[in-house]
């Protein structure tokens, strides 16, 4: 850290000092990790360039196993993206005060992961050079087009939803003058934190929070529908819309938990991510593990009960056939582990939630795998021979690069933007304590004396 910057930082209030330090102070470990991740990303780009040159034949895909890793990743990442916007919006709208320190990190996950999710189908295209045809020749009856529209909307909305609540913090950085003055002057768009500005900001945030919820719900519903609108066994199911939304939120919560634990350790944010946060998030995770189980049971039981031969081939392939390992691993990761850990208070700690969160992230990836692959290799027509699917190194490299790229960008983001909202913390301290006291009081029956006086 340069001396003058350190001096300037020292003049700031403690919250700001703590939260802005990562922007100007970078450890060698960070560079090392970033370098390693960068290499993985480069490697992935090499792999993709081969695929681009020679065609999707460089993957392990075939007929009728048309969709593989990329589509799994697509569903998975878009699912994770429900972390931020949806959760933070729900918490905001429901005025959950404990949200203040975690919304920013969650919203960042959303925006970044959404980008990485949205490029997956493009990576999966046979003709990425013609991707504009979707606009030029778009056919609205295709669920894929609905998807393009809803993801586009979602990306825009969540970027705005990330940006607007960040403006006051950007203004703080600008005013502190610790980093790239021109950049932050531009980003802060003249925000001076006047009360009129603040009021307008809060109103916009309020409206956005409400708007973004249906958009987010629609996004994953439509992704579910992409599968459900085909006639392939175990895709053609009405539960897919809600099932996908629920799963998305579930994986989102897990992703936030993981991010919180890591940020807390990396930037010493113990004061901001407190045990109570982990406890509350752990409870949410517990709730969703139960929901997950309910949805999964409903899905598989109806398929099993119907006993339609084509469905049953896929069903058994998952439950007791070649896909039994990923299937039961998914059940363990998405249900058993989080349930067992999160139902006890003493595991709803950073360490406990980290384990549960990672387990759910892995489990939800497996769930996407179990949706995409077993159906793909089991064609509906019994005369068609079964396919096999072994992802190629190209696919696995791109998979790795996607994860690495996301983590890298997230790391870089923490170097430019405070990962905990400074002004919201301030507001919490200055105003919410009073507001909440008043609000809580308003829930309660009035004391007899004052009630009489009011009469």
């Amino acid at each position, binding site marked *: 850290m340069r001396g003058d910057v350190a001096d300037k930082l020292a003049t700031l209030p403690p919250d700001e000092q703590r939260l802005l330090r990562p922007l100007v102070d970078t450890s060698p470990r960070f560079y090392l990790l970033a370098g390693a991740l960068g290499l993985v990303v480069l490697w992935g*780009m090499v792999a993709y*360039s081969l695929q*681009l*040159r020679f065609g999707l034949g460089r993957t392990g895909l075939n007929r009728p196993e048309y969709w593989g890793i990329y589509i799994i990743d697509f569903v998975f990442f878009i699912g994770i993206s429900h972390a931020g916007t949806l959760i933070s919006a729900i918490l905001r709208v429901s005025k959950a005060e404990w949200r203040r320190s975690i919304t920013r990190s969650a919203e960042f996950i959303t925006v970044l992961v959404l980008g990485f999710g949205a490029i997956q189908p493009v990576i999966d295209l046979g003709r990425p*050079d013609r991707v504009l045809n979707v606009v030029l020749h778009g056919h609205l009856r295709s669920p894929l087009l609905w998807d393009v529209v809803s993801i586009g909307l979602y990306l825009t909305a969540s970027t705005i939803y990330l940006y607007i609540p960040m403006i006051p913090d950007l203004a703080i950085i600008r005013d502190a003058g610790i980093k790239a003055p021109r950049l932050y002057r531009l980003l802060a768009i003249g925000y001076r934190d006047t009360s009129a500005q603040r009021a307008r900001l809060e109103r916009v945030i309020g409206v956005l929070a409400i708007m973004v919820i249906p958009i987010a719900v629609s996004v994953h519903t439509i992704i579910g529908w992409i599968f459900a609108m085909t006639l392939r066994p175990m895709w053609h199911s009405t539960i897919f819309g809600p099932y996908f939304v629920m799963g998305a939120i579930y994986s989102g919560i897990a992703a936030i938990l993981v991010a919180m634990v890591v940020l807390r350790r990396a930037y010493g944010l113990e004061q901001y991510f407190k045990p109570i946060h982990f406890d509350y998030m752990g409870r949410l995770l517990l709730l969703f593990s139960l929901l997950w189980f309910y949805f999964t049971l409903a899905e598989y039981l109806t398929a099993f009960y119907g006993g339609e031969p084509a469905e049953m081939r896929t069903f058994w392939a998952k439950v007791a056939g070649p896909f039994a390992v990923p299937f039961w691993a998914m059940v363990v990761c998405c249900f058993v582990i989080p349930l067992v850990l999160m139902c006890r208070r003493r595991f709803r700690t950073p360490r406990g939630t980290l384990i549960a969160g990672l387990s759910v992230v892995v489990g939800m990836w497996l769930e996407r795998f179990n949706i995409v692959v077993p159906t793909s290799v089991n064609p509906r027509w019994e005369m068609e*021979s079964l396919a096999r699917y072994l992802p190629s190194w190209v696919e696995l490299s791109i998979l790795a690069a996607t994860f690495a790229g996301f983590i890298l960008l997230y790391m870089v983001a923490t170097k430019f933007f405070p990962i905990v909202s400074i002004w919201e913390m301030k507001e919490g301290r200055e105003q919410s304590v009073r507001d909440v006291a008043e609000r809580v009081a308003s829930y309660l029956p009035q004391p007899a004396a004052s009630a009489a006086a009011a009469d």
Partner: protein
Amino acid sequence: MTQTRREFLWAAGAAAAGLAWYQAQEITWTAEQVAEAGWEPGIESRLASACLLCPARCGIRGRIVDGRLVGIFGNPLHPMNRGGVCPRGIAGVQALYHPERIRAPRLRTGARGAGGWQALSTEGAVALVAERLRGLRAGGRPDGVAVLAGYCDGTMHELWRQFLRAFGSPNYVADDYRDGIDAVMSLTHGISRRPAYDLERSGLVLSFGAPLFEAWWSPLQAYVAFGGSGGDRRDGSRPRFVQVDTRFSRTAARAQEWLGIRPGTYATLALGIAYVLIKEELFDADFVARHVTGYEDRLDAAGRPQEGYRSRVLRQYRTEEVSAVTGVPVERIVALAKAFAERRPAVAVIGAEVMQAPDGLLGGLAVHSLNVLMGSVNRPGGVLFPDDPPLEPLAAPVLDASARAGVARPPISGAAMPFGDGDPARRFAQAVAGAATPPEVLFIYYANPLASSADSGLWTRALSRIPFIVSCSPFLDETARYADLILPDALPYERWQDAPAPASYPYPTWGLTRPLVTPPPGAVHTGDALLALAQQLGGSVARSLPYASVEELLKARARGPFAARRGMTLGDEFERTHYRQMEERGWWLAEHTEFEAFWDDLVARGGWTDLFYDDTDPARLARTPDGRIDLMPPQLQGALDAAGSGPALYAYSAQPAGAPTPEFPLRLMPYRVSTLASGTLALEPWLAEQPTLFPDRHWVPWVEVHPATAERLGLEDGTMLWVRSSRGRYRARLKVFPGTAPEHVGAPYGLRHPDGELANPLQLLDGSADPLTGVPCWFTTFVRLEQA
């Protein structure tokens, strides 16, 4: 820091630009390809010709665009295939434009087989051969030239023989893998000819192992009959196909009924059916009484009592015993016999594999005796003996003294077997590899013994003793690689040739091929080369072959049908029916009064046919001395008696040869895949991609094994294996298939690995043959499977 960041951005940008360029390149390449493929509509025609890729000789129509053959379709005017073709015929375009074609004559430079070649002109090549041949004649050894010809019929066959005769050599060696069925006909009917089967008009086709829908003499004839689109069946009924086979083949799968039987028991089953027919008096007693000898017991020439067919069958083929031997349930044997009697006219077809057994001739007689019992001979829907097309013979050969002396010398391959000439090529190779004086010059035409024979080692030794080998192959097959001179033939789509329908087809039919596209400049029609050679040799050889080209020769031969006052140039359904009906009433109406017009029409329509068969002609039933069909031919009886304790006619004998040993426990069952075009070429890609029956198998040769056998051996589907017999081994992939009998190995032949390695089960064969006909046995060899 900023520095590195900038560099990184620059590098990323450059990489992206590079990728874009790469991508764009691919797209332009594709566009170029489209343009090169001749996107603009061209000059297009569809011309009649014939397919020469298998003995069926179907009529085809080639679609030619701008001088390229872009598609092969059936010729709807051809009465045998009626517009249909098989996959192999369609894939002919891939043979025509095969990347491995030889496009110009080559002379060997280095050691034999080492692969050193030098190009030379066609004239130069012919002159070189002429010089060699002149030397032979000058040295008084005209018989020092020999011809090894593979499947070679029609005028090309006669051209080669005429050439050899005029030159003075008896050494025409057929490498055509005969099956000996003509011997069966010769013995019983006195007609030495492969029988024709009138499948179209038959009520029940009972095939004993004949792969009718795969690699039969004419699969298309069988398809048309099965589809019911041929013949004059006005009620829309179709023949019922019953397949008796050791293997679950495509024929077995598509026949209305399949009887899977034990190997080597065809004759037993046939006589078991005969037993029921006789016992229940279902056979045609009137026909037998009027036209058959040897049915009842009789006295032989020496006055000794001799058991007849009837007594032998009744004595030995009780249904339970037959069932125990063949593995076919009693009820099915009885039901089959009844169906054979009821659904008349019924016909029993002898498959080559009946003959390719140690007692093959006897097996063939047993199967054919069913046709005799039911009177299904010389009757619609039965066995017919049609005439050959009435072609003008070749000019009479002129033999000078030298030629007469040469022709009189004994042929190198020695004498034929007592009842047929099963494997002359093998005898030739044995003689040459052994003591006999080898020929000085050997022409190889349409044959590739180094790859296709059962003993490539023998052939290598034989060929190494021959000083000058000329191959006519348009492909660098194994034997061509071993030649001294390659004079590449034009492909069938580039040359004039005749294409007579195979013997299995009941109506004399003469198809024609004509050049649809021009051959590469260095390829020369072997027939034209031969005529040119004859001219260069001059004298009586030239006078024996006074034709400028094969086209002229064919035109000369067409004067036969023109003058025959029967038949018609190929025509549509209406014309066919019209001509047949006229001929049935004894009329005939000339389509053409001018020969030139007749010839033009013949070429335009693709050939000539005569769809009338005169079944009242007794000479078509039997040409034995007493004019009767003989079920107990005395010559054969005599030969069997002389041999002593061996098998007897219609006598049940346990499987004569071949039994599993602990070392080689599995029976090898070679079979020919229907897509096989030429056994020794790599398959055309379209065919390699879709071996029928197993749509999931591509390219790599496979062997079929029953699931229980595979499990016992601990082998999984898809494993690469060595198939090993005491004679050798080859590589193939395991296909677990429940239709294969347990402890058998179904082994398609003619396949190659993608790298060109041959997978030939025939080279594992034990080398045994039917002593009566010389036909090699293909189903007596045992193997084991080892993981490769």
